[in-house]
């Protein structure tokens, strides 16, 4: 007992340089809270926007200039390595475009996509009055920054406790952000409630799994768990249960079947810019962490968890694709498409080789790029009561507004994985990694699923270009430069990655080593 107390306290080594992107974003989030508290309502939006973009861009610069300097820091709790930095930079860049979508305030005559006052009753006199005063929920921005900060920490976390904290910092703001749509507020609040309950459910799985892993290994460090597994003589129920529970927790986050139930409802109910954020950044962070946990901690148990992942991957691809076929709502269709992409990404996790890491990184980049653009375009097509999301309303869009419809078509083709778009590169590398990792049957199912998926993506394109527009159809509103830039960059990058994928592939391959 006495030796324990007398042991000298050692100051932990913290490499602030490697952590700087996280610290910048979280610091900006705290300042953003203060802005909410002290800046008058009229100026808040402008101040918040300046702060958010400044923070994101500074963080990108620090992350890019610091890339390549790997470090395990904070007493082993955080591992800033190749994949971690790569995903951080991806999340930050995608966040810039998501923030642009969120900043848009010219599409809706009443203002931006967020409610005037979240605590006024939907449809009440109160709500109308605050809308007339031109109020908006600027609390969105601190929430957004906290969520981004959580993601940045999530992808570099090297122990289960930090993973859990980061998971919560990432998720809790999202639950709130889903609830503050300006239009169809009840739907939005319902979505937030569902997301919260199921998200909390998923987190509980994750925490329970962490507890079991700790019980098994006596440590929460991923590396120590891996060592304990390699020292294991035979099968052990505790660690198998831990792997199962941890993966279920993460399947919830990335919305893999059968833990996907929340995704369609939440994607439809949440404000479209927030949906874009969830579909792109959360998926990047979730898959990134799944990859790290499985590769670093549990690779020694691959024989035990691989069958489970095979099944989940196959079921996810097939179920999501088939359900997507039956959808009549464009946001719902994109939601199922996003679920099916989780299935494709799991192929790379199963592969369990460096190729798998690189291909996941590539896939995530191209998928997130296209997703932001797609949801951006969804916000443009509007009827009298907000976004027109029913498929029938999109009929003949190509004749009325060829530019927007053309952009959307390119993004859909990328989702489908048609050659010369970025999506093809993503699928190609993932399938390659899968075959190299011995998961050929899954890859075959994946190929079949992408063929089925191509059908419903092409169906939308046919609908847009080869049908006559309805008389009272929706209009395509001209956005402010914010959304304009976000969508154009997304479409252009999708094409560029499709035609010249080499730099991206090289970068991802360079970044594809986990340290532990």
């Amino acid at each position, binding site marked *: 007992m006495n030796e324990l107390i007398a042991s000298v*306290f050692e*100051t*932990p080594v913290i490499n602030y340089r490697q952590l700087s992107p996280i610290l910048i974003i979280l610091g900006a989030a*705290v300042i953003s809270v*203060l802005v*909410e508290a*002290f800046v008058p309502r009229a100026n808040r939006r402008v101040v918040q926007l300046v702060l958010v973009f400044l923070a994101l861009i500074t963080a990108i610069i620090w992350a890019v200039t610091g890339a390549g300097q790997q470090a395990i820091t904070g007493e082993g709790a955080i591992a800033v390595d190749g994949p971690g930095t790569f995903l951080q930079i991806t999340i930050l860049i995608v966040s810039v475009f998501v923030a642009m979508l969120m900043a848009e305030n010219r599409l809706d005559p009443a203002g931006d996509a967020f409610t005037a006052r979240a605590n006024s009753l939907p449809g009440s006199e109160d709500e109308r009055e605050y809308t007339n005063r031109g109020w908006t929920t600027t609390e969105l921005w601190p929430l957004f920054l906290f969520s981004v900060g959580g993601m940045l920490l999530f992808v570099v976390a090297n122990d289960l406790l930090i993973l859990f904290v980061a998971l919560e910092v990432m998720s809790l703001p999202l639950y709130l952000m889903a609830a503050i749509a300006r239009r169809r507020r009840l739907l939005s609040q319902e979505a937030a409630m569902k997301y919260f309950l199921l998200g909390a459910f998923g987190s509980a799985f994750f925490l329970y799994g962490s507890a079991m892993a700790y019980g098994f290994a006596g440590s929460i460090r991923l590396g120590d768990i891996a060592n304990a597994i390699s020292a294991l003589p035979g099968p052990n129920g505790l660690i198998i249960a831990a792997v199962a529970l941890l993966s279920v927790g993460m399947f919830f986050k990335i919305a893999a079947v059968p833990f996907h139930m929340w995704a369609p409802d939440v994607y439809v109910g949440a404000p479209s810019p927030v949906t874009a954020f969830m579909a792109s950044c959360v998926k990047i962070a979730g898959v990134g962490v799944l990859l790290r946990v499985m590769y670093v901690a549990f690779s020694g148990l691959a024989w035990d968890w691989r069958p489970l992942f095979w099944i989940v991957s196959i079921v996810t691809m097939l179920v999501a694709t088939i359900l997507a076929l039956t959808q009549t709502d464009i946001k719902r269709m994109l939601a199922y498409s996003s679920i099916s992409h989780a299935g494709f990404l799991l192929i790379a996790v199963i592969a369990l080789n460096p190729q798998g890491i690189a291909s996941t990184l590539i896939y995530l980049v191209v998928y997130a790029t296209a997703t932001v653009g797609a949801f951006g375009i969804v916000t443009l097509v509007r009827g009298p009561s907000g976004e027109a999301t029913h498929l029938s309303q999109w009929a003949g869009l190509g004749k009325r507004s060829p530019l927007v419809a053309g952009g959307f078509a390119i993004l859909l083709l990328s989702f489908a994985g048609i050659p010369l778009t970025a999506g093809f590169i993503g699928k190609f590398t993932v399938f390659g990694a899968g075959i190299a990792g011995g998961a050929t049957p899954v890859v075959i199912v994946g190929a079949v699923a992408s063929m089925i998926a191509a059908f419903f993506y092409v169906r939308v394109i046919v609908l847009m270009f080869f049908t006559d527009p309805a008389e009272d159809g929706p209009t395509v509103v001209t956005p402010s430069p914010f959304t304009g830039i976000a969508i154009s960059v997304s479409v252009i990058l999708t094409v560029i990655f499709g035609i010249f994928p080499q730099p991206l592939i090289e970068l991802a391959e360079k970044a594809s080593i986990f340290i532990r």
Partner: protein
Amino acid sequence: MGAEYIPVLLLGALAFAFAVFSVTLATLTGPKRYNRAKRDAYECGIDPTPQPMGGGHFSIKYYLTAMLFIIFDIEIVFLYPWAVSFGLMGVFALVEVILFIVTVFCVYLFVWRRGGLEWD
């Protein structure tokens, strides 16, 4: 190890036995004269409302207070081990705790400015 916690349980058991004994004692010793008015909710002599105020609903302020309490209680729980071993950790601990307290204080300022601490 752990033996020092046993007396706590003993004291708890004794207190529990005493409390249960008192509660049962009263049912045995007291008179029983049934009267409907006696068993109504007490509202200063007026006819009682069928349900407690608001049908059991109460002001959201209480929830807000409860949530703020949780935030600060967690702050306290973090501060205790820090305070106990502060002497061993030196300047590093000082800097870290200042950062921590200031961050929590920012949220406190937000709540204050937004009227979360007003009762009327």
